């Protein structure tokens, strides 16, 4: 099993964190994994992304040339990373923040209105974790329980204020997964 995924969005959407959660979950399942962010001045413009690899074997390049999967949480990321998806790969598009039509015929697109979905949940809800839930449900690359365990473990290291948001995160994750099983009409 090899999975390469790029998570991208603007600053504050939690693209980097979504990648780290994924990595932690992979460690819990005893898999090899790498995470590498865009860094430095690149972050200051507001567009951030990270590359995550999950594999049963040793991982060579942490940097992803062509990804199996891209989670693009805004239109800028969609434009930037559409060409980075492997032939036959898949891309999540955030239809709440992008009106751009998909360009490629050789990859699959999943349109998710991440921000609208977030509004339906207990506040605050998290678009990055909703997307993560959808990604896990779609790819089954890791078990949902592993992701919940990862978030639970990570929450332990946070301040009490942030720790309290763990249930919201889990709700977001599950809601993202349920959208894949049964896409809701969004008004």
């Amino acid at each position, binding site marked *: 099993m090899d999975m390469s995924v790029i998570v991208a969005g603007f600053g504050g959407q939690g693209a980097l964190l979504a990648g780290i959660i994924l990595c932690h979950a992979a460690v819990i399942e005893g898999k090899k*994994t790498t995470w*590498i962010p865009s*860094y430095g001045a690149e972050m200051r413009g507001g567009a951030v992304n990270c590359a995550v690899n999950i594999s049963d074997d040793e991982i060579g*390049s942490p*940097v992803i040339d*062509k990804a199996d999967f891209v989670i693009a949480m805004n239109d800028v990321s969609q434009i930037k990373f559409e060409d980075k998806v492997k032939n036959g790969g898949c891309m999540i598009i955030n239809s709440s923040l992008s009106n751009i039509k998909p360009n490629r015929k050789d990859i699959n697109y999943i349109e998710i209105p991440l921000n609208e979905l977030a509004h339906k949940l207990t506040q605050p809800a998290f678009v990055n974790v909703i997307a993560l839930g959808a990604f896990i449900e779609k790819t089954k690359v890791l078990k949902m329980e592993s992701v919940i365990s990862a978030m639970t473990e990570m929450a332990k290291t946070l301040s009490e204020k942030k720790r309290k948001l763990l249930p919201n995160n889990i709700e977001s994750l599950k809601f993202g997964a349920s959208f894949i099983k049964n896409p809701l009409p969004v008004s």
Partner: protein
Amino acid sequence: MAKVLVKGNEAIAQAAINAGCQCYFGYPITPQSEIGEYMGAHLPKMGRVFVTAESELASINMVIGAGTTGAKAMTSSSSCGIALMQESISAMCCAEVPGVIVSVMRGGPGLGNIAPAQADYFQALKGGGNGDYKTLVLSPSTVQEAIDLTYRAFYLALKYRNPVMLLADGILGQMMEPAEFGEYPYEDPDVSTWALDGANNREPRNIVSLHMPEGAMEERTNRLFEKYQAMQENETTYEDFMLKDAKLVITAFGTVGRVAKTAIKKAREAGMKVGLFRPITLFPFPDKALHDVAENADLILDLELNKGQMLLDVRSAVFGACPVEFYGRTAGGLLTPDSIYEKICELYKKIDNKIEAGVN
């Protein structure tokens, strides 16, 4: 101990703390600022020393001051910051001051960019500082190895009273992967025979890098080179990956080594006999071992994220035993498993054609 998910820069910082690093002096620069941030968050709480220096000139000289007392001291920087330290690294070698310098390379020359690169191989290995001197240089390719080599760097610095550089690149500094912090595995040598702590009931000591009397500097340099020879004999390490029957041998250091492995596995699946020779100590360079490998190979392909720097040491070690080709990108251009695989296929055809034509 269980594996934890850890960022390269933070792994180096935590490993330094585990190794007993008593003080860190540094000046921020991308892509290694997390090392200073981590040290700033942890060392003061432990009663150890953390100083944000006014420049890299200052930080390396603070390391010198700490080093003269026998303390385990460290600084970290990147490319242009390391350039500022060169005079003092030379002085450390001359005066025999231990210290650990972490260099997390970015794109150059000049301010360059902040993307990963390996273009400071010459800077680390071939000086920039003045005079005849050698810095021990260790090159990790994974976060786990960054931890292990940080431990080794502190040990070697004290063992040889010499600066030791951990030469990483922006990829390793910024990436996270699971790794294990074992305990610091070395027994440190006694420093009380030479460290400065006040001339109490003994002759005064000095640790200086100016040696003016006639013949003094040559004599000292000769003695230093005996030490470098001992490093060569005792400390040289490299990774052998599928070298045994390899006809095409890839040489690469740091993160390029791990990327090459993916391409090599693919090539092996396609029936090509390819292996990896990855120097872990860049000085001392594993030249004897590489020469032996080259004698049994048809071709060496040197891969680097620069325009061909380790290439000179590879050629010198191979010394005509087989042809050496180079493939590299620089200043943020990266080698991917696919691009390396394509290069392997292209060169392997040449080897096969030669064998078919009876040339060899």
